[in-house]
């Protein structure tokens, strides 16, 4: 579990107080996953119970100084050596929402997709701006380069995640348009069907043209090949 192993990693270089661990965790991860002091001490208590850390003295205010044990070190090594389990993907609210939107009457799934895309791209804009700042800090030779690099890696993970989501949303939209085009207005049967299928397959634009979904006649969609002079 990540806080537990995160604290062990932060104790590896040397003894720390709880409050130091909290701020070190946050500066390494850019406060993306804020920790409160209570969580830190609860976790330290469990680590102590499990023999991963021991208390070694205290400051004047009575705050305990924690030290990693050999058992803690081997736990930490095992954590780094073991991939994060993907066997049980965490529940993804967006995937569930779109899955439900497919079968729920009165839901405009493209509006659901667009509102999410807006939100996701906006988050990417923000992460990208923070990334530009982090890069500038690293190139400027900041005081705590290790924290800046760690924070950059976390930020880029957030960017990759949002990018994957945005791409998946684009894909969902195209998939739905393609499926509704394939189902076609009044689903042309007989000799018409193969031709319609060939049309929508031959031009990318036929699939991606939004319009009014099923209500839109399939015929003109193949005519969007006109290109401005920018295409060479």
């Amino acid at each position, binding site marked *: 579990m990540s806080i537990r192993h995160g604290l062990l990693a932060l104790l590896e270089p040397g003894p720390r107080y709880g409050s130091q661990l909290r701020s070190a965790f*946050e*500066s390494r991860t*850019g*406060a*993306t996953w*804020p920790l409160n002091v209570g969580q830190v001490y609860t976790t330290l208590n469990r680590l102590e119970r499990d023999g991963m850390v021991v208390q070694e003295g205290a400051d004047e205010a009575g705050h305990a100084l924690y030290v990693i044990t050999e058992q803690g070190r081997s736990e930490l090594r095992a954590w780094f050596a073991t991939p994060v389990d993907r066997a049980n993907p965490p529940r993804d609210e967006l995937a569930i929402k779109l899955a439900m939107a497919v079968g729920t009457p009165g839901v405009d799934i*493209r*509006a659901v997709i*667009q509102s999410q*895309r*807006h939100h*996701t*791209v*906006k*988050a*990417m*804009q*923000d*992460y*990208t*701006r*923070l990334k*530009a*700042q*982090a*890069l500038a*800090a690293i190139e400027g030779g900041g005081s705590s380069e290790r924290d*800046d690099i760690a*924070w950059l890696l976390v930020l880029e993970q957030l*960017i990759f995640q*949002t*990018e994957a989501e*945005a*791409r998946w949303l*684009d894909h969902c*939209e*195209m998939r739905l348009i393609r499926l509704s085009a394939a189902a076609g207005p009044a689903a042309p049967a007989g000799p018409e069907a193969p031709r319609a299928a060939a049309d929508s397959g031959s031009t*990318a*634009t036929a699939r*991606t*043209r*939004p*319009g009014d979904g099923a209500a839109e006649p399939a015929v*003109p969609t193949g*005519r*969007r090949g*006109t*290109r*401005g*002079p*920018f*295409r*060479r």
Partner: protein
Amino acid sequence: MTTQPSLQPQKSQQPVLQLQQLTRIHGSGATEVHALRGVNLDVFPGELVAVMGPSGSGKSTLLTIAGGLDAPTSGRVIVERTDITKADRKAMAALRRRSIGYVFQDYNLIPALTAAENIALPRELDGTSARRARSEALAALEEMSLGHLADRFPDEMSGGQQQRVAIARALVGDRRLVLADEPTGALDSETGESVLALLRSRCDAGAAGILVTHEPRFAAWADRVVFLRDGAVVDQTARSEADSLLSGQAAER
């Protein structure tokens, strides 16, 4: 999705580019295609606007019309206060040279000219003395930390270097509108990022830019992302303070 969000001016300055009620119809009668359906867009100095949308949504048409390479069926295109849809051929050519810079996917540098000569060319065509044009070109390269490329020919540069030179060319002299059509399309993602970072920094320095891309990761460098669907703006994001996204500590770093 019938409502088009109104575009609120975000800055007190005059926009560098204004697109007003732009429509573009290709063909006529049965083959008529509405490439743009009443698009409004203002781009201000210091602003980078990304235009996203599936192919066929009108992105490239929008850019060609904004740059005066194609004329709208109706609507106005105002560049630096001049309505280019009303300009004659000659005035339009001059406006394109003086006010508008392009960045293409395939760089479009002239192979027989060095980086500095490529950048100086539009200025010379516009009547600037060769000497002055060269010193402007060198200054533009220097400003982007590209001075070492000045005397290289395109085939002596990597794709990323050529694209950086193309950005320098787009913004040499008084030009402050850059129109970029998939500028990262031919680059690997790391190089693409650095080209975007350069475009971003030119806009931070006061240029206005439109970036057409289908890559969300590159669009994310923009201040504003406009979503085109079927020739109309369906939605757009504004840049918010990143501080609201993560807790304050992170943003202050």
